[in-house]
């Protein structure tokens, strides 16, 4: 090989390596850019409200009042309610698929069902919720004697629960699969029943991973936009019960961002976006760290 071709190769080598690092840097800049943009853009609102943004509930852009408390309450209420509803189902499926039926056609059906549920876009969940679930909830509300809106916090939470079950279930299944076979065999050979093995060996071992799965699905529920926007009723008042109408931080963004005029209005909406971004970032970092730790221990 002549000296020239070697030099040529070295140049290309260097070019390729800098291309690789450059693409890494782009991702880094992108994420930092998102945070900084949100921070800068929401500064006017943060200064104007002097940190009392989430301490009062009047959201009236016309008269210049921006209190985001009802959105915060709406978000937390729907997300935690959805998590609560989803836990028995996702835990059951995780145990069934992770421990009882690791193969076979029933497992295949169940796995396909979960994949299908995970594949449905959120706008279609919202559409279905609006036209099928909401009328049922309305009937229920008539029977219970509360104002029959049909849409509202409860409807949104049910749809959200349905959307996060596949996610938590498949994470849970993977974590349960990581439980060493020797531990389970030891328990079974000592005469424990399958249930006792699950409760006293498998679940305690997989505990941190399973809770990380729930944490990550909570993050999903907090940030879900379209389905919630379509079935929550979009009221800016503080929700008083699970049958009330409401709004979440994501749904208020979806509803009002394109119509917002006036710098403080837009800036206030971006402040909501900033909070949403920070909370979901913290949740996903903690969740992923726990799961990574579990797989490394393996």
């Amino acid at each position, binding site marked *: 090989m002549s000296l020239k071709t070697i030099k040529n190769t070295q140049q290309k080598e260097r070019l390729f390596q800098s291309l690789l690092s450059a693409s890494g840097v782009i991702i880094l800049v992108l994420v930092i850019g998102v945070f900084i943009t949100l921070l800068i853009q929401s500064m006017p609102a943060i200064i104007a409200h002097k940190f009392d943004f989430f301490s009062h509930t009047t959201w009236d852009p016309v008269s210049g009042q921006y209190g985001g408390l009802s959105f915060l309450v709406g978000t937390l209420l729907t997300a935690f309610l959805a998590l609560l509803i989803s836990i028995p189902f996702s835990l059951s499926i995780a145990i069934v698929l992770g421990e009882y039926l690791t193969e076979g056609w029933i497992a295949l059906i169940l796995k396909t069902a979960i994949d299908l549920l995970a594949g449905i876009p959120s706008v279609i969940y919202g559409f279905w919720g*609006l036209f099928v679930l909401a009328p049922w909830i309305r009937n229920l509300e008539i029977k219970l004697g509360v104002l029959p809106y049909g849409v509202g916090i409860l409807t949104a939470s049910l749809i959200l629960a349905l959307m996060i079950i596949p996610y938590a279930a498949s994470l849970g299944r993977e974590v349960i699969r990581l439980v060493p076979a020797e531990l389970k065999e030891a328990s079974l050979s000592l005469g424990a029943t399958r249930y*006792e093995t699950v409760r006293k060996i498998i679940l305690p071992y997989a505990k941190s991973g399973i809770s990380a799965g729930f944490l990550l699905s909570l993050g999903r529920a907090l940030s879900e936009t379209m389905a919630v926007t379509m079935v929550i009723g979009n009221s800016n008042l503080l929700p008083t019960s699970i049958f009330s109408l409401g709004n979440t931080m994501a749904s208020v963004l979806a509803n009002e961002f394109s119509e917002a005029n006036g710098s403080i209005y837009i800036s206030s909406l971006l402040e909501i*976006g900033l909070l949403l971004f920070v909370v979901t*970032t913290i949740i996903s970092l903690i969740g992923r760290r726990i799961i990574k730790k579990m797989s490394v221990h393996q």
Partner: protein
Amino acid sequence: MKKSSLKIRHAKNYLFIGIIGLCSILLMIPLILIFYQLITLGGKSINLTFLTQIPKSPGESGGGIYNAIVGTTLLVALASLVSIPLGILTGVYISEYQNSRLSGAVRTCVDILQGTPSIVIGIIVYTWVVRPMSQFSAISGGVALGIMMLPVIIKTTEETLGLIPMSLKEASLALGVPYYKTILKVVIPTGFSGILTGILLSISRVAGETAPLLFTAFGNAFLTYSIFKPISAIPLLIFNYATSPYEEWHQLAWGASLLVVGMILLLNLVAKGVTKR
């Protein structure tokens, strides 16, 4: 041990199986209901007109969603244009430089990006692209979807490359093949099916996304091929028509829903087929 306590323990065992089995089966009910609704209502409206014409004004029956089909295709193509090469390169980077501090930071950023709410990506792209151009456009929609595709492509590329045996790379390097050629001609082709799976999954993830398009692509009732104008997309059309008061538009939205779910399932099936090979 007393016989009765053994019986109780066995009973508990069966009860437990019954409960978790029941919960698993219960989940099938909403799934079946959703698909029943999609197929019965959506199936009715899918025909040739539906696929080749643009929507009619409210009150008139007929019309189709051709403009949205074109829009979604264009948006996904624009998104893929940047995010596929960038995603693969970043995936190669974090799998090749595992111990550098920068690649650790990049990996964290990918996790953050994956957890970022889609609506936040929408408002960010609005601030970055729509506001300077002072117009909603297909380009901005493509950027938003591209950002959503990135983490999926990066992660699958990284995972796939991690599975490739070291000996393969070493053999190539030992033959005197330069590093960049080893990556481009040996490592990436070997992991091709895995990377392709990632790309297909990332497309199926964004094909149904609505929130990032609300303030970027914005939607358009008419047909356009221009990347500088507001453009429709199937999920946007579903959202707008589902929340409208017109029965004819609801019909179109059910058809569009069936179409988009069918597309996503097909992409997932193909992705699974590719992985098996």
